């Protein structure tokens, strides 16, 4: 993306792309395509051109537009989509991936200037969501979506979003709980100060009053803010697991009981402030751990890839039905750029299907009538008619999701460090507590009880519980700055334990448009001009590459033009007869496609030479190659093996590369690696990798645009950052080391506290100082250490 016009290039006023193929001029402003121009015209007509003042080229490119919204007239689909609807108004929220700047906010909140029937529209920028309220007597949902589309903001309406609507009510009021705990903590501390500084004889009446107030403040902390710890500890006990919540719940309970008893019997001031502080800090840790990326979804599966509705022919007429109602035997119409939702037989039309997402095969495949076409392919070309032969959920591609890898629950069986430690910690804690009790019991049962409870209070693993969330969330934001988005904090630890890396080929280490092109032979200026003028008529990816390669030439008039699908172009330009295409078209015979893709050029029956396309791999692949001794590297590809020899320099070993792999075979390969004891990271990009991503211990989806579709995974990596992968791996190990260190620090605090506690002489002041002090140490240590580690790895 270029920001301004440099050396005579003309940049589109709307989207900022260079105007190569076409140039439209309106009001002395240049537009690169019809789509961009029409958006400008809509905005101009509504006096909304301020849009272009806030940012330069705020629009998204509109060269490829194909939107069909007829299905939004279907009542079932409408009721699934809207948030609220009555007989007057409808409220609906859309996810719009194109939202990216202040101009977007400005324009989308001005919708009622374009159509007054829209009462209100509000944007949530981080979630890339717009909420629209409109009067449904004057405008339909479909018209609203079309309006959004016309101004360049097409909402992403997918099946999964429709389904997601129903199960997004997992709010647990964490913020409110923190507020209550913080409120009580502050008040209790204030009321405890007089006690700590000593009260004179006259003020003794206050002691009792303050004590009961403290107990009052502890009630909501224990029974509202802290309930989670009790229920979690109880659930874990029933499942015979000892996790860190058990000593925490025990600590909270003991603190509360002892405070109430001391105040009631007037024997002491109790530990009200320690209790409130403990719960407050613990909840803060929980809050920090829960970092979410609103605009990224890690849970997508084939449903978000498939259309919401399909066009079906029923008794001669075309109707739109929701995908879930599609049955075998129905005739469906698939138009240009639409996805085939279920396995079907081709009945009518010319099918040229792009399977890149399903198989990883880069070039479109042409299919003949009567052939079975698997779901997931994208039709390029005219509309085709097909008959559905399998339900959506049982087609070739979607069957993958029936694999047990997808029904498995979260966690993937990897226990994080703090879970392992807390098991032993709890056992040791209980042993110390009970032996203290037994030691004092014969002498003085009061002292014994005091020592017993003091041990449980002081050893309450608050700092221990905080070290993991704080380190991990700091690490997460470092990764985030480097365009590596992890699903949750536990993934950092998984990353540190990886010892095998499996890469997908197409889309992952190669990118679709990243081939390099060169011409073998010599071309004069006139010849270039002829080839350019021929190729610009075609939308085939190779033609596009050729004319962008030859760009900046004046276009000549095309007299005759035919495109032979899968072969090339026949054209008559300026009186010259031109053939551009593969050897079948140019020489009339097939050549053995060894390594290179070639496009031959024949001008007036004179052979000029060929364009050679070589694959270019993402920068950074060499770095990954260097990981070899420490990590086992593998390549899985759904593609043919014609790049085998080029790839050998990265993967060293032929056995490490597998070609022609089906999605299921990829999954099985990961599984067999795991059975041989490896902890596998899978890096892939398409639906065909979805099974392998899920099966692996750490699935990373690679994408060039994080808002685009990416299959369900544990982490999403921006293509630009693949080069940093080795550094990421090292940094994750640093983070784990920091956790080890912070565990040591917090254990030291526990031991200091215990030395007071076992004697039975723990005063509330010591507890009240020790607890916040250890917490503050841990928080500052983990944040600073993570920062330093990131700096050392040059990640910030």
């Amino acid at each position: 993306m270029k920001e301004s016009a440099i050396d005579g290039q003309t940049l589109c006023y709307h989207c900022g792309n260079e105007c190569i193929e076409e140039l439209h001029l309106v009001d002395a402003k240049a537009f690169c395509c019809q789509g961009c121009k029409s958006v400008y015209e809509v905005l101009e007509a509504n006096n909304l051109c301020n849009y272009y003042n806030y940012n330069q080229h705020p629009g998204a490119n509109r060269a490829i537009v194909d939107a069909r919204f007829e299905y939004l007239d279907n009542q079932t689909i409408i009721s699934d989509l809207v948030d609220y609807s009555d007989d007057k108004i409808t409220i609906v929220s859309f996810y719009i991936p194109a939202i990216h700047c202040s101009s977007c906010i400005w324009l989308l909140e001005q919708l009622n200037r374009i159509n007054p029937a829209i009462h209100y529209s509000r944007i949530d920028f981080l979630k890339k969501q717009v909420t629209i309220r409109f009067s449904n007597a004057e405008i339909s949902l479909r018209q609203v979506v079309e309006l959004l589309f016309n101004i360049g903001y097409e909402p992403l309406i997918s099946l999964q979003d429709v389904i997601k609507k129903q199960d997004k009510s997992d709010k647990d009021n964490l913020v409110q709980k923190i507020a209550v705990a913080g409120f009580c903590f502050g008040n209790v501390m204030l009321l405890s100060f007089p006690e700590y500084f000593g009260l004179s004889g006259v003020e003794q009446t206050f002691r009792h009053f303050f004590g009961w107030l403290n107990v009052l403040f502890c009630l909501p902390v224990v029974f509202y803010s802290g309930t989670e710890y009790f229920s979690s500890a109880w659930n874990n006990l029933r499942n015979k697991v000892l996790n860190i919540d058990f000593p925490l719940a025990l600590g909270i309970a003991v603190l509360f009981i002892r405070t109430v008893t001391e105040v009631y019997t007037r024997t002491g001031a109790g530990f009200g402030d320690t209790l409130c502080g403990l719960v407050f800090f613990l909840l803060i840790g929980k809050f920090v751990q829960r970092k979410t990326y609103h605009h990224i979804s890690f849970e997508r599966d084939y449903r978000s890839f498939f259309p919401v509705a399909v066009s079906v022919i029923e008794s001669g007429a075309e109707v739109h039905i929701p995908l879930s109602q599609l049955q075998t035997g129905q005739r469906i119409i698939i138009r240009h750029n639409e996805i085939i939702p279920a396995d079907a037989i081709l009945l009518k039309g010319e099918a040229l299907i792009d399977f890149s997402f399903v198989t990883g095969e880069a070039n479109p495949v042409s299919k003949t009538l009567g052939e079975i076409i698997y779901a997931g392919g994208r039709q390029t070309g005219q509309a085709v008619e097909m008959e559905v032969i399998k339900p959506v959920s049982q087609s070739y591609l979607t069957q993958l999701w029936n694999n047990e890898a997808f029904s498995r629950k979260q966690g993937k069986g990897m226990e994080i460090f703090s879970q392992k430690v807390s098991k032993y910690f709890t056992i040791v804690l209980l042993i110390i507590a009970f032996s203290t009790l037994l030691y004092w019991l014969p002498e003085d049962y009061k002292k014994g009880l005091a020592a017993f409870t003091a041990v449980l209070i002081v050893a309450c693993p608050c700092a221990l519980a905080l070290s993991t969330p704080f380190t991990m969330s700091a690490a997460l934001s470092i990764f985030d700055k480097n365009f590596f988005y992890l699903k949750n904090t536990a993934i950092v630890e998984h990353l540190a334990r990886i010892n095998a890396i499996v890469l997908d080929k197409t889309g992952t280490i190669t990118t679709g448009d990243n081939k390099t092109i060169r011409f073998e032979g010599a071309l004069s200026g006139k010849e270039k001009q002829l080839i350019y003028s021929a190729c610009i008529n075609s939308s085939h990816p190779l033609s596009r590459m050729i004319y962008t390669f030859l760009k900046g030439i004046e276009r000549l008039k095309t007299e005759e033009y035919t495109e032979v699908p899968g072969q090339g172009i026949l054209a008559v330009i300026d009186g010259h007869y031109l053939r551009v295409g593969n050897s079948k078209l140019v020489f009339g015979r097939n050549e053995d496609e060894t390594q290179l893709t070639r496009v031959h050029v024949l001008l007036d029956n004179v052979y000029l030479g060929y364009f050679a396309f070589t694959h270019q791999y993402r920068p950074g692949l060499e770095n990954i190659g260097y990981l070899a001794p420490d990590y086992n590297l593998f390549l899985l590809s759904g593609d043919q093996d014609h790049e085998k020899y080029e790839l050998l320099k990265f993967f060293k070993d032929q056995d490490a590369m597998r070609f022609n792999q089906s999605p299921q075979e990829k999954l099985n390969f990961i599984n067999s690696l795991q059975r041989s004891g490896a902890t596998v990271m899978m890096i892939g990009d398409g639906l065909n990798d979805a099974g392998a991503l899920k099966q692996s211990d750490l699935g990373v989806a690679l994408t060039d645009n994080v808002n685009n579709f990416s299959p369900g995974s544990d982490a999403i990596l921006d293509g630009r950052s693949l080069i940093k992968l080795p550094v990421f791996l090292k940094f994750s190990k640093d983070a784990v080391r920091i956790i080890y260190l912070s565990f040591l620090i917090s254990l030291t605090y526990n031991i200091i506290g215990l030395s007071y506690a076992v004697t039975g002489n723990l005063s509330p002041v010591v507890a009240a100082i020790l607890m916040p002090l250890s917490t503050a140490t841990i928080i500052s240590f983990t944040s600073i250490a993570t920062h330093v580690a990131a700096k050392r790895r040059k990640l910030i």
Partner: protein
Amino acid sequence: MSIIFFLIGCSILLALVFLGAFFWAQKSGQNDDLYTPSVRILLDDADEDVESKPKK
């Protein structure tokens, strides 16, 4: 010194009002989107005078 009983009562009451205000803000969704308003405030209001041609 018994005025302290009264004063503490007042202070707690006041604090409770603020806690209540926070709860209300949270419930009414004021903290749901913490970013967009910061951008929105920088955008100019629509210039009403040029808005003369009512379209569609």
